[in-house]
Each structure stands twice: as C-alpha cells, then as structure tokens.
C-alpha cells in the first residue's frame, strides 16, 4: 500500500510539470507518466497533458496507442476524454483529432479519435 506522502509527491510533480513552460516537461510526462504501470499515475499524467492544451501534449494522449484516450484502462481513457471535453479552447484538440482520423495508421486509434471528435463536436 502506497503511503500518502508518495501519492502527494507524484501528484504535485505531475501537476507542476503540466504547467512548467519547458517543452521538455511534456517528454518527461510521456516517458515516465504515461508508461507507468500504475493506472492512477497514467490517469494523472494524461489529464495534465490535456490541461496543458498544446499540440505536443495533446498529440501524446490522442495519437499514441495505449496512451490517453487509447489507454487499455477504461478509467484512464474516460478520464482523458472527460478532460478533453472540459477544455475551454478545443481548437487544437479538434485539429489533432481530425488529423488522426484521416491519417493515422492504426484503425483502433482512428476509431477512438472519431468517437472523441464526435463527442467534442456535440459538447
């Protein structure tokens, strides 16, 4: 059982990296956070990347198989979609989703992107 202090530290680090102006923070979150075996860490990382609302950060959670909206965990995927729907400015996210639907090589990723795009268009 993980102690509260560790949970708090990881949460704060991910949250801090999510708003850190350095572009390298996205790669740190992608490399460590989205590849973690702990669902909660992946969920927190995906949400932080969506909140950042940048092309690179949104691409990580939309176009990569097994990450963000394509995560194996339903909780992580749904949490990422919910965060995308909560965005005030959805322009960049919609653009990436359109590109993914049209050009991504993996059919499953294309289908997921199409579904999320439809949800975002309705919201």
């Amino acid at each position, binding site marked *: 059982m993980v102690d509260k*202090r*560790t*949970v708090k530290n990881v949460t704060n*680090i991910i949250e*801090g990296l999510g708003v*850190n102006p*350095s572009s390298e923070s996205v790669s740190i979150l992608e490399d460590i*956070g989205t590849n*973690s075996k*702990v669902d909660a860490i992946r969920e927190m990382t995906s949400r932080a990347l969506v909140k950042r609302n940048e092309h690179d950060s949104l691409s990580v959670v939309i176009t990569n198989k097994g990450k963000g909206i394509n995560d194996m965990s339903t909780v992580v995927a749904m949490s990422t979609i919910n965060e995308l729907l909560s965005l005030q400015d959805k322009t960049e996210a919609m653009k990436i989703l359109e590109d993914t639907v049209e050009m991504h090589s993996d059919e499953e990723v294309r289908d997921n992107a199409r579904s999320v795009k439809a949800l975002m268009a309705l919201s």
Partner: protein
Amino acid sequence: MANLSIPAIRERLFNTSRHEQTTQRSTNPFAASTFKGNVLTADVFESSTKQSQPIFTGKLKASALVGSISGIGERFQNIINSVVQFGTKIKENVVNGWNKLEGIEISFNPLKERMTSAYNSVKEVMSTSISDLMTTGISAKSVAKMEDMTAARKLLEDNVAIWEAA
C-alpha cells in the same frame, strides 16, 4: 334619637296610641308591626348608607405605599446580598480548588512526569509532521518553476518508482 326624658318615657309607656305617629318616622321596619313602636323607638339598625370600609386618607395611603416600597427594597437588598454571598462563595471555592490543584500538581510527581511526557510526545509528533512537510514535501508550484529538467525527470522517476514498488 328619641327623647328619653322622664315625662316622655312615661308618655310612651302609658299612652301608646299617641306615640304611634312618632314611631312610624323611625327607619325600623318592625317598629309598627312587631313592637308597635312602644319599646324600640331608637334607630338601632345601621344605615344602608353607612360605609363599612374605612376611608384612607392620602397620608395613610402614602405611608402604606412607602412601607410596601421599603419592604420591597429590603427584599431586593436581601436578594442582592444573597447573590453577592453566592458569588463570594463560588470565588472562594474556585480559589480553594485552584490551591488544591496546585498542591496536587506539586505533590503528585508521577502524574506530573506523565503529563510532561505526554506533552513532549505530542510536541514531538507535531514538530515531526511539520518538519516533514517543510523538508521533504514537493509542491506543484516548485516543480512548475523548475528549470533543471534533468532534476525534474529524476524527481518524477524516483517518486513513481517508490509508488510502483509499494
């Protein structure tokens, strides 16, 4: 009042017929019928207009009022005195209790030691938790301002590893 002179009495005793007229002027309603006005000629009945209750004068009323007021004041004074006495008693009890507590605290050393130990342990726990928060706690604000991204990566790696190992 009837005329009670000796000739008049004699007249009333032996010449009753003449006296009937005078007896009828009496307010006694039984004078004519029962006693025929011969014996009871005086008005022995109390007048209906006579007042049974004595009329108090202003001075009497005022004195009664003053007496009642002074009585209330006395009672009020008694109440105040009792309240003051009560307060004084409470105060004395509190002071006595405090003195007793002080005596116990001084004389009962094991309890004093235990209390001191408990206080120190609480203080230790409090200081530990606060110092932990101050020294090892990582705030999101500090990470957001980090410029050394290698250190940031290491920080996240270490903490994720701790979580995954748990």
